[in-house]
């Protein structure tokens, strides 16, 4: 179990993580979603003991990562965003080392290595230097090194970044296997599809803060049944607010001289009325984007920008 309470990490004036709190349960995947620079990796760093929090507490299976770091890390598996492998060594030699760091030895370790190599599909390449592996194979081994000791808590920091779709599917299956074994998984990504298909609970981060959290249905409910309509061009913000105020069910999320962001149910059927209303006010429309309700719309609704911007 991961318990994060009021976690804060500052670098001088910069607040990378700003007092976030969440709890991830065993046998579940907790997703941390957010754009690059939102603070996800810093959060993972604080949980894994790599970074010392400026404030707040992190507990892994009840052990504080600062005051009882070694005990806390004993049951922790970390799969970093960048590949962290000895490329001049073989897959087996890598697994031997990383398993050994968690105290696995002898026949137990060897048996476990064989199991992991089978799971990640590298048994036939077990003795080849890692530098000869493809990107997808390295990613799988990177994950293998994080699960060789069967951790109770697993931190996965964008483990599928930059891999081909086939390898991604395989990696996601491996993560599901770990959850089925009872591991508590914290999974960071900026791929919404991954988060939607994988995570039991989600928190959306931006600028170091959690701006929304809950199960997928709860988050979808936050996004509402409304579609999101984004118009780009030349507008009079005040005039637009007045004009759309008269239209039933239209919520003006954002209005500037260059863009209008509207949340409204069944937007496709109301486009004609919206365009007419804008034309009457002298606005000029150059681009129109209509998005169905999703985590993406929730994120845009909450932050005003796309997840991958």
């Amino acid at each position, binding site marked *: 179990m991961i318990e994060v309470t009021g976690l804060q990490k500052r670098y001088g004036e910069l607040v990378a993580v700003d007092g976030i709190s969440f709890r991830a349960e065993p046998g579940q995947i907790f997703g941390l979603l957010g754009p690059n620079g939102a603070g996800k990796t810093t959060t993972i760093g604080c949980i894994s003991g790599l970074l010392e929090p400026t404030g707040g507490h992190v507990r892994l299976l009840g052990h504080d990562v600062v005051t009882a770091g070694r005990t806390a890390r004993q049951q922790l598996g970390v799969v970093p965003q960048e590949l*962290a492998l*000895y490329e001049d060594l073989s897959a087996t030699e890598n697994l031997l080392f990383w398993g*050994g760091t968690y*105290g696995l030895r002898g026949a137990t370790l060897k048996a476990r290595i064989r199991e992991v190599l089978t799971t990640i599909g590298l048994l036939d390449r077990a003795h080849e230097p890692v530098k000869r592996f493809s990107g997808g194979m390295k990613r799988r081994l990177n994950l293998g090194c994080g699960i060789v000791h069967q951790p109770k808590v697993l931190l996965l920091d964008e483990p599928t970044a930059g891999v081909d779709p086939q390898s991604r599917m395989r990696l996601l299956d491996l993560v599901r296997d770990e959850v089925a074994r009872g591991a508590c998984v914290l999974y960071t990504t900026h791929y919404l599809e991954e988060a939607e298909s994988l995570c039991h609970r989600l928190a959306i981060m931006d600028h170091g803060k959690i701006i929304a959290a809950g199960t997928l249905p709860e988050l979808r409910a936050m996004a509402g049944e409304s579609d999101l309509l984004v118009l780009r061009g030349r507008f009079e913000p005040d005039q637009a607010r007045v004009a759309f105020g008269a239209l039933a069910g239209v919520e003006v999320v954002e209005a500037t001289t260059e863009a209008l962001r509207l949340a409204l149910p069944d937007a496709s059927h109301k486009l004609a009325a919206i365009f007419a209303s804008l034309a009457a006010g002298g606005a000029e429309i150059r681009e129109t984007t209509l998005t169905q309700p999703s985590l993406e719309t929730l994120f845009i609704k909450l932050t005003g920008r796309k997840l991958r911007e």
Partner: protein
Amino acid sequence: MNRLVLVARQNLLRCLKDPAALILWLFIPLLIGTLLVLAMGGRGGPKPRVHLLIADEDDSFGSRLVTGALTSDRTADFVQAEKVDRGTGRQRLEKGDASALLVIPKGFAQAVLREEPTRLLLLTNPAQRILPGIAEEMLRLLSEAVFYAHRLLGPELHQIAQAATAGKSVMPDAEISRLSVSVNDAIRGLRSYLFPPVIKLESVEPPQLASSAGGAVSFAISFLPGIVLMALLFAAQGLSNDIWRERETGVLRRMVTTPLDLTSIVVGKVLSATAVLAATSGVILAVGMAYLEISLARWPLAVAWSAGSGAVLTLLLLVIQLHASSHRAASFLTFSVLFPLLMLGGSMFPLAAMPRWMAAVGACTPNGWAASRLNDILAGQATGSAVATGFLSILVAGALLFFWSRGRLASFARR
């Protein structure tokens, strides 16, 4: 303990996966050492001498003086003179059978006594560079000696020359005694300068090491500790630089998230480095000691000392690496320290061959200090207490550098 072994084994395994680096750490110092030893005349054996052929066509008292000077006991160490006629001399020189041929022409002695221009002909062997140069220098000294003899004893020499030209086979006794008194007066005037000479010559020789056979061995032996330290420094640089490779590949960050503590990481690295350094120095010492006929009974202590000193040098370079802002800066910084240490610490030139002030500075460098003690161990002059004090010093320096590097590693890994 298990974790120390794990980290040490992992580092050793990675070293073995890169045999090229290991070979280079051994090969470069051995190559440099071999070249230096050869340049200094090797282990011992016959010293190279100037083989000078002399064709004395004057065959006079004066020319015999020149020949005598070149064949005296004092010059026998570096000149092997042999009288020949001009034709034979040329033939042998063309065959490369000598360093040079000196031809003393007819009338040479008379010309010298009268201070008239004359010429000594020196033909040199083009296949040799240094030995013919020595012969040239000797003749230059001789011509200068003649010049100064004329400044001091000009009238007397002229008189002798005149007597010879006049065909006097025997000079009158009064004439001989007058000349003798005159020469004696001139020399007496110079006594304060010549006896003793105003220039004091001090010859400094490297400490002679005793060979296993009991005799003194050559100057080349003093290179061995420097060569070992050179190999240790190269290896220490490579081993300490590995921390940057681990950082750049992300494994160092990952290691910090495991139950491994920083002490295990640093000590494990130092243990593996010590094993590599023991192997490296062991090979060089075995080769060097066998070549120089030093008792191999001293090998274990010499290897232990080298490995211990090397471990401290690795920690020193590791501290420098950990303070650098980038991998490139780390390499630049360590090499900036490495090369002056090599130059000053006796790896390029033995401390004994350096000017006194430089040798004093060199002996204070970590590698110079270690090389001096290794020298004592190889010479069989290291006492038990000196060895114990040396190892204690290594331990203290190692502990200080260990705490420094461990303290720095945390922020280095997290950067």
